[in-house]
């Protein structure tokens, strides 16, 4: 625990000093040393197999400074720490072009505060402490999102993030106060079990409150606005680990409430399937590389929710295999998504760094200009598409394995849930593959579509190194999954409330086979590549134009664009995504102009939130008369409020 506290101190001091001394490097050192130091704490917790905790009194009523690193916390804490340290190194290099234009010390201050608050969020075991850290996290990330505040869309993104975030906090506030009133304490270990009805409402509140942060569909609308707006290393941190604090919170509340009725599982499964499907579809429709990645976070959160939902259902219906494999797959996907989404955001950031644009339609051919970044992005794309032998496949494999086991269960409910999950996971997987082939293919392959993309040069090592580490992580989890069973067993045992060790052990042979096949695959690829080189040795290997069915002068404008690549799928799903096409065809023999536009606005925004907010605003406009602009009247309001409160309480 000392390591944790020391790390926290280093981090916060670094942030403060960066602010006060106006030295970014101090912030950088704090942001790297702090998390690395604190990383020893979860490792310690795993080695000893028991929770580390510290509790100090705090002079806030009902508050206490109660931190505990148990299995669940350790599992979420480790990726947060590792990825923040890597992100800091990357960020230092990434921010250099902004050096004379903007106030960078505030970036370091808020970055360090964000990391520190996330550390406390996943370890706090007291309601007040938790909510304080939660709010700090939201505010720190808000200031990082509006880094480029002079752009109106950035500011808009920041506002919608702030509003969404506070709506979530409101739900959580109600939840914790309710729990506190029932139990007379706000320490998590003092929360007893509530009645079934109350527990149901509390679970709903938690799904709402934490779901906004996690980006559950349709509460995700802020996410694709805010994540891309931030500097890329912050996007990586937000998408890679910060959204997972929502998942952590949900699981923590699930732990407090105990196994609920079956509808809890069903709720998460449906949210998961919807988030996955819509996340993947909207990701497919984006042109902005970072926005695409943000939508794909919604999709992956959907996969996580599916896994957790299956786990909850399995626990409720006493199906230990389903419970274990569902939770296990969902949790492993939390880790995996942290790895590959950070990798993707960092490499997308490198693209922005060297080309100055995020618009895929202006990129292309980057694999020859920035080969390392391209290779790393490709690896991340494979991992996020759930392809073997990388890590994304392993977690989806575990969820699918659980669902396929559920298919031959005797309970019709389990079979229905399993079949739904299998079908939606398969569809989500197929869409994710299409989406990332498009992202990688259009941005990195072929010929450059615009001038800026031609003159790009590879980024320097401080940006490459974090990406390499993350990529290595993706490969290692993909190949070495059987060796992750210890942390996984610990955390799954905690959540599924049973001796899950044996059920997980049951799938270890499958995971070992994955290791074997993955290694075999890599060896075979190497052998075949050698065979090909041997075959071509001494033979003529020429270079020419792309054949293109005999067309003699192909130009980069003739390549398939990102929109045209996605068109068949968007067309097919237009009924549910509401994408629209405007088309003015060529006319006459010498056509003057033609036009083709497609648009896929977020339906959650256009069909749900916009109308609701418009109605609310309309209703609130009726209260405009309260607002006069005379300060005296405001003082009168305060006095009246005070008086009423006195009357109500004392009268």
């Amino acid at each position: 625990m000392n390591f944790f506290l020391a790390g926290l101190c280093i981090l916060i001091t670094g942030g403060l000093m960066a602010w006060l001394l106006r030295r970014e490097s101090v912030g950088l050192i704090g942001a790297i040393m702090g998390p690395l130091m604190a990383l020893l704490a979860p490792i310690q917790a795993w080695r000893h197999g028991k929770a580390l905790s510290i509790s100090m009194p705090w002079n806030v009523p009902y508050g206490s400074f109660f931190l505990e690193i148990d299995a669940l916390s350790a599992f979420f804490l480790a990726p947060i720490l590792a990825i923040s340290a890597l992100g800091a190194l990357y960020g230092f290099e990434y921010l250099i072009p902004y050096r004379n234009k903007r106030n960078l010390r505030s970036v370091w201050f808020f970055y360090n505060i964000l990391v520190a608050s996330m550390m406390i969020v996943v370890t706090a075991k007291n309601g007040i402490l938790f909510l304080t850290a939660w709010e700090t996290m939201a505010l720190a990330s808000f200031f990082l999102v509006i880094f480029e505040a002079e752009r109106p869309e950035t500011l808009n993104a920041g506002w919608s993030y702030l509003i969404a975030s506070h709506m979530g906090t409101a739900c959580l506030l109600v939840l914790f106060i309710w729990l506190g009133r029932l139990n007379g304490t706000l320490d998590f270990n003092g929360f007893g079990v509530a009645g079934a009805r109350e527990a149901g409402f509390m679970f709903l509140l938690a799904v709402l409150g934490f779901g906004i942060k996690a980006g559950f569909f349709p509460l995700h609308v802020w996410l694709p606005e805010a994540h891309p707006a931030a500097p890329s290393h912050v996007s990586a941190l937000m998408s890679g680990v910060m959204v997972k604090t929502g998942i952590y919170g949900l699981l923590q509340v699930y732990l407090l409430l105990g196994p609920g009725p079956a509808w809890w599982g069903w709720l998460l499964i449906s949210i998961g399937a919807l988030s996955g499907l819509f996340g993947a579809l909207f990701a497919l429709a984006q042109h902005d590389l970072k926005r695409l990645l943000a939508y794909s976070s919604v999709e992956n959160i959907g996969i996580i929710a599916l896994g957790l939902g299956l786990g909850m259902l399995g626990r409720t219906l006493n199906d230990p295999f389903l419970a274990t494999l569902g939770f296990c797959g969902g949790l492993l996907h939390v880790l995996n998504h942290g790895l590959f989404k950070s990798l993707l955001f960092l490499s997308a950031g490198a693209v922005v760094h060297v080309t100055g644009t995020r618009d895929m339609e202006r990129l292309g051919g980057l694999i020859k200009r920035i080969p390392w970044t391209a290779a790393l992005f490709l690896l991340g794309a494979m991992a996020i598409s759930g392809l073997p032998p990388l890590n994304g496949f392993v977690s989806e494999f575990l969820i699918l394995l659980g669902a396929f086991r559920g298919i031959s269960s005797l309970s019709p409910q389990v079979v229905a849930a399993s079949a739904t999950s299998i079908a939606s996971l398969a569809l989500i997987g197929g869409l994710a593959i299409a989406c990332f082939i498009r992202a990688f293919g259009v941005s990195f392959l072929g010929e450059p579509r615009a001038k800026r993309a031609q003159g790009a040069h590879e980024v320097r090592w401080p940006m490459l190194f974090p990406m390499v580490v993350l990529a290595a992580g993706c490969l290692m989890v993909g190949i070495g999954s059987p060796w992750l069973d210890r942390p996984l067993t610990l955390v799954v045992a905690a959540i599924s409330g049973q001796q899950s060790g044996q059920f997980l052990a049951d799938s270890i042979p499958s995971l070992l086979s994955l290791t074997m096949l993955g290694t075999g695959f890599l060896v075979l690829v190497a052998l075949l590549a050698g065979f090909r080189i041997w075959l071509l040795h001494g033979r003529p290997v020429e270079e020419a134009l792309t054949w293109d069915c005999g067309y003699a002068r192909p130009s980069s404008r003739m390549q398939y664009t990102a929109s045209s690549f996605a068109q068949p799928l968007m067309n097919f799903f237009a009924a549910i995504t509401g994408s629209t096409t405007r088309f003015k065809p060529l006319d006459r023999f010498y056509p003057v102009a033609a036009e083709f536009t497609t648009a896929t606005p977020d339906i959650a925004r256009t069909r749900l939130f916009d109308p609701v907010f418009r109605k609310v605003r309309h209703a609130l406009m009726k209260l405009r008369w309260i607002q006069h602009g005379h300060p005296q009247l405001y003082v009168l309001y305060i006095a009246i409020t005070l008086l009423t409160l006195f009357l109500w309480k004392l009268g």
Partner: protein
Amino acid sequence: MSSWIELAVLFLILSNFALLGASRVTTLIQVAAGQGILLGLLPLLAHAKQGNLRLIAVALIAGLLKGVIFPVMLGRALREANIRREVEPFVGYSLSLILGVFALACSFWIASRLPATALFLSRKALPAAFSTILTGFFMIVARRKALTQVLGYLVLENGIYLFSISLGQKIPFAVELGVLLDVFVAVFVMGIAMFHINREFDHLDVGQLSALKD
């Protein structure tokens, strides 16, 4: 014998999917006709041993009406109205198929929740009946042409018929016959109406009838 009934019920379910996925109106009519003939055969398969004359007669009449007379009438209306396929339905064919799967799953769930009755035909007849009824409703709601909607009405009736025969003697065949007569009249009237609408407006698009609402 029972495996034949199972097979027939399975084909009924499959024909529902075909109705949801097909776009050509002639195909729809043919599938509906096949469904009618299957429904006519079902009671015969179930009661062949008893040789109950009244039952066999009713089944034959039903099969004849559903499998031959209605389709022929609709085919004639089709020729007169000169439509070949359902263009731009309210709900696309792929989505219709997916909804069909959901409807089938729901039907099995509903059937499992109903109080256990003496299962007359097969355990799957009741869910098949529900899914046929739902398919009929869906066709009426989600398709544009009046003719397809009449077909939906027919399919709905097929479902009710299957429901009644799968419950065995609980619902007297007289009631069923009455329903059959209703449908007969309805199809007749609609055929005439369609003929007239077509002659007046030169199309059979129900969506455009809403222009008459004021």
